[in-house]
């Protein structure tokens, strides 16, 4: 069968534009500006411990909130009638396809000090709150942008659960809580794991959300990388080293996902 040779052009393309860039990042990460082998770039990261810890903390909090909100949403959606389910799922996906800069910008006008939220609070006679340019604003932005990535994979796993398993549990005397705890929840875990990956990776690497909602004071890993390539602190070697760390994080997430056997990507695509 000659059909397998049809992929040859893409294999060449992948070598050039997928594999080669990764290799270049690795080379940059382990060399100095003079081109000598060094671990310096990784040592320099020590100076940015606060950025690393803030990035991870905010991404973990956002991922946790997404699970707490997203799991019940996915579960409730799976119990709706088939026709309504289709519409409701489409409505979950719709904001995802709207430019994410614009969605984040919309939150800016809600959260800023003279923004809509504070006007509403004053109208109700409540004290105004200062959210914009704080970590809270970043978390709100992350949850808002990435919540659909948690809901969709969990939903797609729950709807595929074999109903006869649930009926068997009920026949054997399990009540609703036990059925959920012993049957539905364990079977839905692959969806939860792919949801975690799909929320955590973009959350830990964002630089737009932190710049728009966090002000300048709450720098994240994404901002740090961006600064090394396009910003004032031009140093692609340090930037590559941080990017490499991020790649390793993604690889760990991928490995975890494979281990728990989830098909996350297909869930997000229509």
């Amino acid at each position, binding site marked *: 069968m000659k*059909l397998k040779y*049809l*992929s040859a*052009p893409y294999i060449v*393309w*992948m070598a050039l*534009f*997928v*594999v080669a*860039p*990764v290799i*270049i990042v690795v080379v940059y990460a382990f060399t100095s500006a003079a081109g000598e082998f060094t671990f310096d770039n990784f040592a320099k990261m020590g100076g940015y411990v606060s950025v690393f810890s803030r990035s991870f903390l905010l991404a973990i909090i956002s991922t946790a909130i997404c699970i707490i909100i997203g799991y*019940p*949403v996915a579960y*409730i*959606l799976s*119990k*709706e009638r088939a026709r309504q389910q*289709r519409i*409701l799922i489409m*409505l*979950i996906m*719709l*904001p995802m*396809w*709207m*430019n*994410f*800069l*614009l969605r984040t*910008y*919309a*939150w*800016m*006008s*809600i959260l*800023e000090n003279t923004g*809509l939220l504070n006007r509403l609070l004053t109208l109700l006679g409540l004290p105004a709150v200062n959210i914009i340019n704080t970590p809270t604003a970043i978390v709100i932005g992350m949850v808002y942008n990435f*919540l*659909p990535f948690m809901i969709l994979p969990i939903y797609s796993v729950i709807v595929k659960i074999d109903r006869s398993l649930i009926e068997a549990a009920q026949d054997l005397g399990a009540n609703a809580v036990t059925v959920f705890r012993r049957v539905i929840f364990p079977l839905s875990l692959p969806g939860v794991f792919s949801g975690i*990956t799909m929320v955590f*990776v*973009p959350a830990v*690497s*964002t*630089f737009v959300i932190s710049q728009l909602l966090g002000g300048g004071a709450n720098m994240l890993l*994404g901002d740090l*990388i*961006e600064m090394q*390539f*396009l910003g004032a602190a031009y140093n692609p070697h340090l930037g*590559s080293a941080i*990017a490499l760390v*991020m*790649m390793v994080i*993604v690889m760990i*997430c991928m490995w975890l996902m494979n281990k728990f056997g989830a098909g996350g*990507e*297909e869930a997000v695509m*229509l």
Partner: protein
Amino acid sequence: MRRRPRVASRIFLALIYLFLYAPIFIMIVFSFNASKSRSVWSGFTLDWYTELFSDSMIISSLTTTIGVSVIAAIVATIAGTFAAIGFFNMRKRWRSPLLAINNIPVMNADIVTGVSLCLLFVSLGSVLKYQLGFGTLLIAHITFNIPYVILSVLPKLRQMDRNLVDAAMDLGCTWFQAFYKVIIPEIMPGIINGMMIAFTMSIDDFVISYFTAGSKVQTLSMTIYAMTRMRISPKINAVSTLLFLFILLLLIIINVRQIRQEEREKKLRTLKSK
């Protein structure tokens, strides 16, 4: 018996949809606001929409975005379909590692894909005397689009009856005829779906474009980013309203197609069972 959701869960669901749609709704409302304020309503106007179409920066970035998205989606669809058919016909020993590499741009954080391509283009550019611009932007978009096409074509190939190809060739088809008369029509829904995903991915992308377009070319996302940094006019709301309506339309088309296709399949199944 399946239990229907109760009142409490309905309210919870309504609140979530409110959370998801309130910002979008606010954006749309304020695109018609007479003053520049983002939170005080001062009368209805269509000025921002007319100004939008006379803003040369927005128009040129819109042309770039549509140009790069259309070309990238078409190239990625063709290349991705060929690649998927090729992968499908390989032994697992070869297919698995290649699919893993194919997944790298999908799984990686956008910023990592962006900076790694940026480094490649800059180091190649210094050798080939070429600067970042539309060409590099296009290559980057094709590169992150192809994996999505492959991921949506492969399942259709798996669903296909493998005997069809053998039957066609037994009946005298060359492998090329078998390819375009049997395989392509069978996997068409996956190809169209992949193209739609590729197109929306390209339209929506900001981060990868930001690192690969250089300073001379701007996509719409990059212009929006520049605008948000300057905290300026409601033109940005007008852009987003138009984009939202466009995407809504696209999604409705995709869904109607899907429903029709499912109904056709259902009919076929009932016909077969008779």
